[in-house]
């Protein structure tokens, strides 16, 4: 395999990502600086009446929000280049540590939802494709189409009402039981809190991957190489294992990685509905309260995350598909 080409390809992508990141930071910064929410007011919160004007000035001087936006951005950027993401105004803690904690929580949630949607979607797609045009296929297709057009937050609310409020099987929200010290939280509690949000989040992906896999499998099954396999006595199961999986796995994996952006978008909504303390929710809080350092930190982090997904999607193809792997042609 041409390792050099692959490395060049990845380097090229990285350069693009850094340009994109810089643009993204500028844009987000410009948007928050034009936001009607006054960061100082948001910072002080309900105590606004008790704080005098000099104090307000001191606070804004402390956070640097009294300076012109360009200067603020310059300060933030130069600190960033030294590896300092700054301090969050609403949590009053270093942005890096908040993101680390929140991202870990989100990662578990998204990882679970991602794996679940990938496996369930792939399996449903295969069943529908193998049983093309039967009632099974039609049922799976309608199920997916309904799922695909269901808004995540609405679905989350429905699940919450049924399973948490009525049936009382799952907690109403959060990642751990309220009022329990971190070191006393059991793994089972965490899992218990994860199930509903993960389920909500996986649903969108299931529909995507199932419909896509079904379509690919139908194409493969009507291909000439499957015709030959059939003519040479292969059974439908043998055909699925020998030719089906081989030809649909790669597109499915690629799609699954490329869908990380949607997954991330979905996680913002799911985390909000379930008050799950992940990165998505932190982003929303930072935006609503004009917490510039935290918001920019979240923006950078989510962009890198989504970008990595797309990069993996593109790279997997290059590493796995023999047609791209040995581009040099005949030996």
């Amino acid at each position, binding site marked *: 395999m041409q390792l050099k080409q692959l490395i060049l390809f990845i380097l090229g992508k990285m350069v693009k990502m850094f340009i994109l990141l810089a643009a993204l930071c500028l844009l987000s910064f410009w948007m928050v600086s034009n936001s009607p929410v006054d960061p100082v007011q948001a910072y002080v919160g309900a105590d606004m009446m008790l704080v005098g004007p000099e104090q307000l000035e001191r606070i804004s001087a402390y956070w640097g929000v009294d300076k012109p936006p360009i200067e603020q951005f310059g300060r933030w950027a130069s600190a960033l280049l030294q590896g300092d993401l700054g301090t969050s105004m609403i949590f009053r803690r270093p942005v890096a540590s908040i993101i680390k904690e929140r991202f870990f929580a989100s990662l578990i949630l998204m990882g679970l939802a991602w794996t679940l949607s990938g496996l369930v979607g792939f399996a449903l797609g295969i069943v529908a494709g193998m049983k093309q045009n039967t009632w099974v296929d039609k049922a799976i297709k309608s199920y997916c189409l309904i799922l695909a057009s269901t808004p995540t937050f609405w679905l989350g609310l429905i699940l919450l009402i049924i399973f948490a409020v009525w049936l009382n099987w799952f907690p109403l929200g959060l990642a751990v039981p309220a009022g329990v010290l971190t070191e006393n939280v059991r793994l089972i509690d965490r899992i218990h809190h994860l199930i509903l949000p993960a389920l909500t989040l996986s649903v969108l992906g299931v529909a995507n991957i199932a419909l896509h896999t079904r379509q690919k499998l139908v194409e493969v099954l*009507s*291909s*000439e*190489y499957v*015709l*030959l*396999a*059939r*003519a*040479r*006595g*292969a059974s439908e199961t*043998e055909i699925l294992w*020998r*030719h089906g999986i*081989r*030809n649909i796995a*790669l597109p499915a994996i690629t799609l699954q990685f490329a869908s990380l952006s949607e997954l991330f978008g979905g996680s913002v909504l799911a985390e909000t509905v379930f008050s799950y303390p992940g990165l998505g929710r932190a982003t929303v809080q930072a935006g609503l309260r004009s917490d510039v350092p935290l918001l920019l930190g979240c923006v950078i982090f989510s962009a890198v995350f989504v970008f990595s997904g797309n990069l993996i999607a593109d790279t997997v193809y290059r590493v796995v*598909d*023999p*047609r791209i792997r*040995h581009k040099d*042609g*005949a*030996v």
Partner: protein
Amino acid sequence: MALNQSVLSVNELTVSFRQYTRGLRQIELTVITGLSAEIQPGKILAVIGSSGSGKSLLAHAILGILPSNARVTGTMAYDGEELTAERQVKLRGREIAFIPQSVNYLDPLMKVGAQVRASIKDNKKEVQRDIFARYHLDSQVENLYPFQLSGGMARRVLVSGAMVSDARLIIADEPTPGLHPEIVEEALTHLRQLADEGRAVMLITHDVGAVLNVADYIAVFYAGTTVETAPVKDFAGKGEALRHPYSKALWKALPQNDFIPVSGFQPSPGDLPLGCLFSPRCPMASRECFESRPLERELRGGKVRCYHAT
């Protein structure tokens, strides 16, 4: 050509495709019309005909691998017993071997050695290696993917895939185009050997010239039917021994003969003439030719579908 000893006999086979045109109107495209053919053990039946005459579809119909919108009528018998869909499933790959027409019949993501081994009992590697060697495919070829092969190599892989089985009927759909003359010779000789061992071979081709030395009978296809089936010796001279006006014209059109192309076009499946399928182009056509289709009849040791053939 007694019916009881045929490996395969096809009787009045008609294949049509249901298709939907604009406005969801359903139409039937008849691509094979009342076709009959048979093959005996130890014989090679060459099937010739221009593009679109239904050669591949006949092969697919015998194997039962037509698309699901195809409607098939008529009967087929294998070993004198009706060839039902269940029997097709049982026989293909075991009793009936198939060499497909194009290199698209290879899975692009699977190494070709593995693809050939898939049709060998117990997946034996030696069998595949022997057959590759026979078709001058290097031992490393088995580890290549189809896109790494030249067109000729890919075709040899397809041929190898059918030659590994000990089937009693081999259907080869244009196995030779694009191959080196030496390999064509090898493939045809191999088919002849297989026939001499007692198998029946159906060899589909565009090229009458190439099969004159190996075939026993030649069936001439036109617009989805067999217009004539004749012993190979009748394809000689100026085609005097041939029975059907189309076979004669086709024979005369060969470069080594008069090289005069048959004028006009083969009718398209959606637009077949009411009478004899050849009537719009036939110099001998009379009134009845335009009104009804001639049935197949025996004539001078062959079969013909023409009112006026003598």
